[in-house]
């Protein structure tokens, strides 16, 4: 019977007497605060005596607490070093939490709607303290996570850690790799800029190739025939809800299996078919508390520090112009981790290379441990498995290379050159003309003939060019062409580039080189840059390429017996000349040049 209506200290006093109750109570408080040391222990420690021999009460919370019980009590000394794990599994887990936290912060500033998503990006960059920083961290973390998870898989493969009894661990690992790829991919779309829209359009168009239900899959993913408001919302929901839920569930399963089976030892430590991970000899035990825990806290601090340094000085998440379904940027590719599928698509049938081939590949990866029944884990005894893996890696590298825009996509050389000179900042690169300092963009008309090799070199080349244009009447054509580009000029007179504009000289030199490099397809070509003022702090740059048309069959020029291209002539015997052009506006404050 309690003294009060509930159990209290008074009951202790009643039972044990005041003195004893107070002492025991104090002892309990000290033991709770110090996680196991009672007053006697503290006294002993202060006196420098040996610890008491009673069972260590500090292990108590470890033995029945959930958070600490998630981790093994001790590890084998053989697996706590850099090898064999390279900390890749730990890093993958780190990134799961890192991405979750940075992602949740970003969610406060983001609305998944095509009307405001891009505006959200801008306000994150110009109005949210740490907005850019958080975005950089999240984006860098996402790209790093794909890489780390992939490397983790490679490591597991090469140390044979997927073998019995860890087959299912491997299987969930491959699922996690796929989820990671899709998480990264769905996040790609959310900024709703050109980079996002087109990378994802390419990626999502692969879904269309699914046999039988391709159209339905495509509609389901995009929420309509084209990527729009519904598509963005679906990608968002997948990115913040569906995929994270799957990722967390399977991370749990994966890690549970890791703990259940123990960390596999380096192959050299065990005989084939042997699994001693759970039998750790006393002299090889490294306890979670304090060794592993302090080590992990240190790694946590080091990794975070590296990411912070990278995001301050070396990496900024890209943001291109607002998504525009009507304008396809030249050289669009899928995100780098899907380049291999894009490359494979160039091999032929869309359904086979875009869906069946990757499907088979990933399916094969998942069942590897059930196919590869060779119990040996040492390198020398796994020649076939290693050979196959090297073949697959090589194929991955080659198809990824083939996925690049440079490979197998024929673009007219004049368009390539115009793009080379003017393209908008993307992936930290931009057209050659953009970074020229504003004050060096001298108003006037300049020609590559000033910088072409041979006798025409220098100002004499400009004089000759002016004469040539006047005589052939091409100057009229040029003016008419500019008129169609909404630029009306009364006359055109080319001048040498002013001496105080070395950066512009450099660009024109590059321009001349680019034309020379394409002199087969762009026969007898010239290029001009015309700079006109538009507003007080805004200039317009027109870049025009003019060349003589040659016979082209199937995308490549027809050559005569001497290896020269064959020019095309009009009915009256004059050569057919082609013009193509592009223009950009450059504002003084655009900051391309710092």
């Amino acid at each position, binding site marked *: 019977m309690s003294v009060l209506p509930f159990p209290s200290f008074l009951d202790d006093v009643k039972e044990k007497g005041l003195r004893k109750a107070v002492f025991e109570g104090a002892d309990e408080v000290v033991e709770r605060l110090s996680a196991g040391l009672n007053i006697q222990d503290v006294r002993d420690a202060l006196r420098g005596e040996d610890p008491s021999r009673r069972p260590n009460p500090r292990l108590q919370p470890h033995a029945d607490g959930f958070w600490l019980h998630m981790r093994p009590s001790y590890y084998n000394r053989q697996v706590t070093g850099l090898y064999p794990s390279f900390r890749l599994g730990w890093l993958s887990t780190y990134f799961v939490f890192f991405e979750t936290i940075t992602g949740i912060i970003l969610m406060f500033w983001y609305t998944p709607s095509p009307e405001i998503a891009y505006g959200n990006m801008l306000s994150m960059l110009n109005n949210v303290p740490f*907005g850019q920083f958080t975005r950089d961290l999240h984006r860098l973390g996402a790209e790093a996570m794909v890489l780390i998870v992939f490397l983790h898989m490679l490591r597991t493969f090469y140390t044979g850690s997927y073998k019995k009894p860890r087959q299912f661990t491997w299987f969930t690992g491959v699922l996690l790799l796929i989820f990671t790829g899709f998480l990264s991919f769905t996040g790609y779309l959310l900024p709703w800029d050109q980079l996002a829209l087109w990378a994802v359009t390419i990626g999502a168009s692969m879904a269309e190739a699914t046999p039988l239900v391709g159209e339905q899959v495509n509609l389901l993913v995009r929420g309509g025939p084209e990527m729009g408001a519904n598509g963005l919302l679906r990608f968002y929901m997948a990115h913040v809800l569906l995929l994270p839920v799957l990722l967390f569930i399977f991370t749990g399963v994966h890690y549970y299996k890791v703990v259940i089976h123990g960390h596999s030892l380096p192959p050299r430590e065990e005989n084939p078919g042997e699994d001693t991970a759970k039998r750790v000899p006393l002299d090889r035990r490294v306890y979670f508390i304090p060794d592993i825990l302090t080590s992990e806290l240190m790694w946590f601090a080091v990794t975070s520090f590296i990411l912070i340094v990278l995001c301050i000085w070396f990496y900024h998440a890209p943001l291109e112009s607002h998504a525009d379904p009507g304008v396809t940027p030249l050289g669009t590719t899928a995100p780098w981790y899907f380049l291999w599928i894009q490359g494979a698509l160039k091999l032929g049938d869309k359904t086979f290379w875009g869906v069946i081939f990757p499907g088979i590949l990933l399916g094969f990866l998942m069942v590897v441990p059930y196919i590869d029944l060779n119990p040996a884990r040492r390198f020398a005894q796994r020649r076939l498995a290693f050979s196959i893996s090297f073949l697959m890696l090589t194929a991955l590298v080659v198809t990824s290379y083939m996925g690049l825009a440079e490979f197998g996509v024929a673009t007219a050389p004049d368009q390539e050159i115009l793009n080379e000179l003017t393209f908008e900042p993307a992936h930290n690169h931009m057209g050659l003309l953009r970074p020229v300092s504003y004050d060096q963009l001298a108003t006037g008309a300049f020609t590559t003939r000033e910088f072409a090799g041979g006798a025409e070199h220098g100002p004499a080349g400009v004089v000759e060019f002016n004469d040539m244009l006047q005589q052939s009447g091409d100057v009229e054509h040029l003016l008419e062409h500019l008129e169609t580009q909404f630029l009306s000029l009364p006359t055109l007179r080319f001048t040498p580039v002013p001496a105080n504009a070395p950066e512009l000289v450099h660009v024109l030199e590059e321009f001349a080189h680019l034309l020379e490099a394409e002199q087969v397809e762009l026969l007898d070509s010239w290029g001009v840059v015309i700079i006109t003022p538009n507003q007080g702090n805004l200039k317009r740059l027109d870049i025009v390429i003019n060349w003589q048309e040659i016979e082209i069959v199937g995308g490549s020029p027809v050559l005569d017996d001497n290896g020269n291209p064959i020019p095309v002539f009009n009915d009256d015997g004059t050569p057919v000349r082609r013009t193509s052009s592009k223009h950009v506006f450059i504002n003084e404050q655009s900051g391309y040049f710092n």
Partner: protein
Amino acid sequence: MDLQRLLIDRMENRILVGLTMVLASMVLVGWVAINESGRMASFQQQHLARSVEKGAELFSSSCATCHGNGGEGSARAPGLNNPQLFGHDYLAPLDTQIAAVETRIARFETLTATMVDEEARSQLNEEEFAAVQADLAAIIERYGEDPLTSLNGELATLATNRANLILQMQSAIDRGYDPEDPSRMNNVGWGSTLETFVLTTLVSGRPVSSNYWPEPMAAWSQTAGGPLREDQLRDLANYVLNWGHERNWTLEDLLRVQQFAKEPVEGAIQIVENPVATEIIDIQFADVSGRRDEIDEVVARALGEMAELTGDPNNGQSLYNGSLACSACHNLATVAPPTEGTFTRVEDTRLADPTLAAYSAEHYIVESILAPNAYVVEGYPANNMPQNFGERLDAQLLADLVAYLSSQDGDDPLAN
């Protein structure tokens, strides 16, 4: 190999490294925090600049046809590179000076009146009286013994300068500029910023009466059924506003403007007392053959009335380019035949058509104005030209117009 260990074997060292990294990270994050406002400002500026670039592209392809390449405006739309839009007041500095001199004159008159008026003087205590005397002395010291004359002289000079300045703006005034009320924002009573004015105009367009603009400003935003996205409208608005960026407006800037905003005031709509042909307005192309006789009859009557009058080609020209806004469409050959060489074209090309065998050039022109669908030139759409000139013109105005068109007898740019 030591890598085999936890990399750092001793726990103290691990703790030390970890703590150092945490502290270093905190320092770095703090450093980011310190630089955040500067970074955000520079991003803002850079983004605005790039937005202006995109706006320039849109403007040159979509807006320049009406608003002019350099934003100087045309008969179809007002100039935007325009001190009126930005509310620059050329007279303001002079007006300030004039106001200052007028205040001084009033002050001097009050002071002298006080000195003369015994009763007023008696109400002042010594200090106040001394102050009045000091004020007077100061004015006399500055403007001589007869301040009123020299102040009035100064006022006269300023007024002359002001009048001269207005005179220099005359050609702009002829095109609709009002130097006394120079702010577009004030004119329309816009309560918000210029930016929102430009933006809302872009979003929803301007439904206007064809009596003062030949065609309405289209609604450009996708919200209002137009072609452009919200961000593109912002780019465009930023481009337009960039004309006012750190701008010191000069008189040349004003005179370069080809067209000013028009006010939808009474009088802009031409109401004539004796319209020449109200019977045949709004005849659709399909109805022409049925009402052929009526058209011929009314056109013949109009020609009869005009025969007694002399057309003034100058007035015809100002009607053509101004209130009737013919030139809005009759400029490039794309929408309607160009003005240039109209008379030559009628004589050489149109009258060569056998269906017009009995026509004189004047007859053809009058019929084309009063009943545009009576004869539709191949290559141009029917029902396109306004069909209400019959009620907007009297015989004299019609004669003026015909006189102006008859003066277009140079080479026909379409003939070759």
